[in-house]
């Protein structure tokens, strides 16, 4: 089994030690850092997302895989930066104002990172102006909003409206998700997309940055 195959398996199995070891070995064998990301980590996390969609994996398995992916990225990222490679997109992500729940948001952030995005995570209870400031200063092309509660999801609309007022609405694509959020709500508040799950969020983010 090649080092990349070992890494692929380690991420899917959620074994962070094996993932780090395989990454080190791959680099020592001369595999390009970008190849490790696009040729191995991204497809491995896609497979994890697929298993999650198919209800074979649940949150614990996904967390372990994300941890393994991050162990590999920690080794690869400095090398990538040195080569000047660009991420496929820059995402500012956070749970909207008034909502302290971050489990779903953290999962989506991990999956986006595993999907090749640079992720700027603002945490939970994020006010519209913080999303705007981060999107502007980090030159993000994507903003991802999360909410767990029906009573806080209205902050998504406030945030999207604030981007409009700030004159930045055309500069970013805005995606929304979370337990109470539906496609219907996403359309109603003028979001560019809705992801039903963490796996779906990655596919959506790729579509949005390609559009």
């Amino acid at each position, binding site marked *: 089994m090649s080092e990349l195959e070992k890494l692929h398996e380690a991420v899917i199995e959620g074994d962070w030690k094996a993932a780090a070891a395989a990454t080190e070995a791959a680099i020592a064998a001369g595999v390009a850092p970008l190849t490790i990301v696009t040729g191995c980590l991204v497809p491995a996390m896609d497979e994890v997302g697929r298993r999650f969609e198919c*209800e074979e994996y649940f*949150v*614990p398995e996904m967390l372990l895989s994300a941890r393994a992916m991050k162990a590999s990225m920690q080794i690869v990222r400095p090398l990538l930066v040195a080569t000047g490679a660009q991420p496929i997109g820059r995402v500012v992500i956070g749970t909207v104002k008034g909502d302290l729940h971050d*489990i779903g948001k953290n999962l989506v952030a991990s999956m986006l990172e595993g999907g090749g995005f640079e992720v700027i995570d603002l945490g939970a209870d994020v006010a519209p102006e913080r999303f705007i400031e981060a999107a502007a200063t980090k030159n993000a092309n994507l903003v991802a909003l999360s909410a767990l509660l029906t*009573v806080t999801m209205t*902050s998504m609309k406030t945030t999207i409206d604030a981007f409009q007022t700030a004159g930045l609405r055309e500069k970013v694509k805005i995606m929304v998700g979370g337990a109470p959020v*539906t496609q219907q709500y996403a359309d109603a508040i003028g979001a560019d997309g809705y992801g039903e799950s963490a796996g779906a969020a990655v596919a959506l983010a790729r579509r949005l940055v390609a559009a």
Partner: protein
Amino acid sequence: MSRLGEWLAGGLLITDGAWGTELQARGLAPGAAPDTWNLTHPERVEAVARAYVEAGSQVILTNTFRANAVSMEGDLEAINRAGVEISKRAAAGKALVFASIGPTGKMLMAGEIGPEQAVAAFAAQAAALAAAGADALLVETMSDIEEARLAVAAAKSTGLPVIASFAFDSGKNKDRTMMGATPEAVAAAMVEAGADAVGANCGVGVEHAAPVCRRLHAACHLPIWIKPNAGLPIMEETPEGTAIRYDTSAESFASHYAALHEAGASFLGGCCGSTPDFIRALVSTRASAPCASS
């Protein structure tokens, strides 16, 4: 006979419905922590509790779901104590008061908090609720068996009966918790943890509750606690902003009474989106059921 056994000797007990949406109808701002109202607006919290007692609830909860030290800040001892006192005043001896303990909202397995932190938070909350005179403690809306084990152990140390209820909202058939736990795994773990009853609350709608109830009932000898959502929220844009309503009516919710009773439910009420009307509908459905007392 255990205290729970004595309470259930007359048959299924009807519990209450949602509190958060009822408090919002009384002016709680979206995104604000409902628990703080126990100190700032006790009369409005009591109005919600009383509405359920008047609707026929035989068990009411307390407005203390988030009042643990991981989920929120503030004078938690006072918030928990006031929560029990408010519900007891509203119950006035006509309903039992089961005090609500929700999850921390952090993931143990991701290392967001350590087990000792969760234990300390649950133990302090359980002690405050018990000291204020709760009849039983309800550990609810759990998704992680490990976190529930810690909460149940902390709650049991008060000597009160403890009910452990999980949110089954994941998987193809909506019969897994977010963490992937099945009704069978939950039942086995909660029997082992020493819970006096086990159950399902929240979730994705009353139509998914009966299969989960049946499986919990088949997997253990404990009484089953069932409190499903009134379906899923539907958003409507109105001139005043975004309005939220749930897609299940009180009558259609109550039409599941027979199925849930047959599936082994010992306690029955509603979660998010349900109102005192839902409880009234359950009470009247029970009164007209063929075996009203069984």
